[in-house]
């Protein structure tokens, strides 16, 4: 009986961890960001809040708001 309770607890914990990871991943996708792709195939990503993104995102926001 005790073993069953432990397994149930572990499964519940694993499920909640997986759920929170999914929610965080989705939230990260929705976060504003700028991705820069170089000629050499490299990519730099700057998320909202970084100085790089704060410089570029207002231009994009202006464009999306006015067009």
């Amino acid at each position, binding site marked *: 009986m005790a073993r069953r309770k432990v397994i149930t607890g572990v499964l519940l914990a694993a499920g909640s961890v997986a759920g929170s990871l999914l929610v965080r991943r989705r939230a990260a996708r929705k976060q*504003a960001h700028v*991705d*820069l792709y*170089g*000629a050499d195939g490299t990519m730099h990503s700057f998320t909202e809040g970084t100085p790089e993104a704060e410089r*570029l995102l207002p*231009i*994009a926001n202006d*464009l999306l*708001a006015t067009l």
Partner: protein
Amino acid sequence: MLAPMDATQAIADLTEISPQVRRVAVAEAGGALGGSNFPDEEAAKRLLDGAQRLLEAAEELRPELTQLEAATTAGSVFVVRDGDRLIAATTSPEPTVGLVFYDLKTCLRSIDPAPGGGAGKAGTSAEGGSVEPTPPKKPARRRAPKKEAADGEA
């Protein structure tokens, strides 16, 4: 490889295959408007100006930039550069980034460059009237050699 085509046609094809793409504008070498799906030219130029500002600001952070995506909650702005030409587009929120980049590059490369980098073949979809591109020259046909030996034996 796609045959070179008119900018208006290429942009119409792009928005048909990629419904996430909302507004598109193409800049020829020298920055002149090469085509767009805006009803008026001013709005297309505003998108190109904004794309140019984005590129310039981004190049200070990352030199030799070829493409960028600025994603916001209202949508995304994509800019792709191919040589001297540039294509800028806005999309709905959370677009399929790889597909949009691929479609934009394909669209830009399929557009027949205007002579002298001007907007000679440019046209917004509202105008509808664009200059017909000259069809690509077909390769000359080669005549198969005569089968003299085979005919003689028969």
